[in-house]
């Protein structure tokens, strides 16, 4: 019984991490039909931005967290602007290959400018403490992760249901051209989707870094 509860908790927290990443991929895919293979690199960029912020600016983990989220949003939006917007009218294969290309370019940039070896970044490790409840041992990180994912899902749902841009995104998933015919700016809807995917990637990045302590 204890074993089952332990494993359920483990599965929930890992699932939450994957859910954050999958949500980010899904929001872009549903609107553009684009599988963003560079999404993992956005998460990695968050990790490197953490190292940079921690070395150059501050050691306050809360400020670094905000920095990571901001860096991921910025990366996602810049990728959209530089790479994906230019091939938006093209067919799906072109978008797919662009995503692969972006992914390869970013990976090599990390190797060139960063390091082929993992760089230690331990500022978020404090999130990971072991809590013992009876016979079950839970990491506090698992609890934070599950809660943060739940909050992210609720906030995202409210955004998609209540705000004009959110409703336009849901509409765009059904008929993008009609959304433009209604006078919504295509660029804003798509950049918004990328910004959200970046924000979710940033959140996932914080938990991944807290678990691994290196990038």
């Amino acid at each position, binding site marked *: 019984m204890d074993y089952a509860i332990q494993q359920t908790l483990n599965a929930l927290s890992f699932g939450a991490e994957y859910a954050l990443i999958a949500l980010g991929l899904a929001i872009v895919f549903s609107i553009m039909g684009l599988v963003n293979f560079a999404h993992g690199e956005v998460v990695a960029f968050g990790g490197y931005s953490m190292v940079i912020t921690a070395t150059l600016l501050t050691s306050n983990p809360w400020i670094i967290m905000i920095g990571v989220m901001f860096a991921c949003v910025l990366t996602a939006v810049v990728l959209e602007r530089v790479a994906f917007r230019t091939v938006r009218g093209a067919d799906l294969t072109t978008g797919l290959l662009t995503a692969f290309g972006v992914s390869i370019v970013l990976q090599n940039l990390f190797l060139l400018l960063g390091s082929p070896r993992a760089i230690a970044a331990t500022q978020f490790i404090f999130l990971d403490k072991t809590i013992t409840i009876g016979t079950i041992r839970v990491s506090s990180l698992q609890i934070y992760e599950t809660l943060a994912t739940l909050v992210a899902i609720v906030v995202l749902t409210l955004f998609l249901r209540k705000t004009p841009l959110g409703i336009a995104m849901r509409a765009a998933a*059904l008929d993008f051209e009609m*959304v433009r015919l209604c006078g919504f700016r*295509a660029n804003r809807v798509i950049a918004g989707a990328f910004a959200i995917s970046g924000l979710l990637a940033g959140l996932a990045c914080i938990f991944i870094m807290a678990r691994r302590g290196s990038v």
Partner: protein
Amino acid sequence: MLEINSLNVFHGPIQAVHDIDMIVSEGQCVTLLGPNGAGKTSTLSAITGTARATGSIRLGGDQIAHMSVDDRSRRGLAISPEGRRVFANLSVRENLLMGGALYNSKAQLSAKIEQWFVQFPTLRERSDQLAGTLSGGEQQMLAISRALLSNPRILLLDEPSLGLAPQIVSKIFDIIRDLKAQGTTILLVEQNAAAAVSVSDYVYVLNNGVIYIHGQTDQFGHGSELMNELTGVYV
């Protein structure tokens, strides 16, 4: 209001419309008639910017032919497209909110939507229902309402009678008549010649991508003989 000069429209390598000129004046209802494949929808797509086209399109004197789809809509074009294209998985109210891209205040938009609900009480009753569950006629009303919520300078209606029962068709045309009476400028595309001619001021007949004939509505003898002779497909 809308002035089109030497417009050519293309679908891939095929040219659907050849060198047409059209004018829709403010407050007028102008109909573009023609059989299937004549190039009516292509012409509308060129106006809204969703088809590749060359030529001049002026809206209120401003050249819009080079603009993107969203910019043209924001300039005051609104369309109720062929097949209605309501957002099936969004509620009726959310569909109407989509017509409000240009509003700055939410309260203003909600007030405007309430106003529409007075005109179309069925939409109010179904405001929380998914748009895909509405009947064809209700979807058409929704598509027209969505277009009009943006207070457009000109309303483009693409075959609003398509696939609807005769009673519903006459209801839709009553709505068009009301809109015209309220001063809305309308460009109507139709195959239902008799009904379309009855609501419009001026008629263009398109066949094989060229304007075959055009003139004031009264020259068309209420959509009967001349029409039959021209295209051979009308009753």
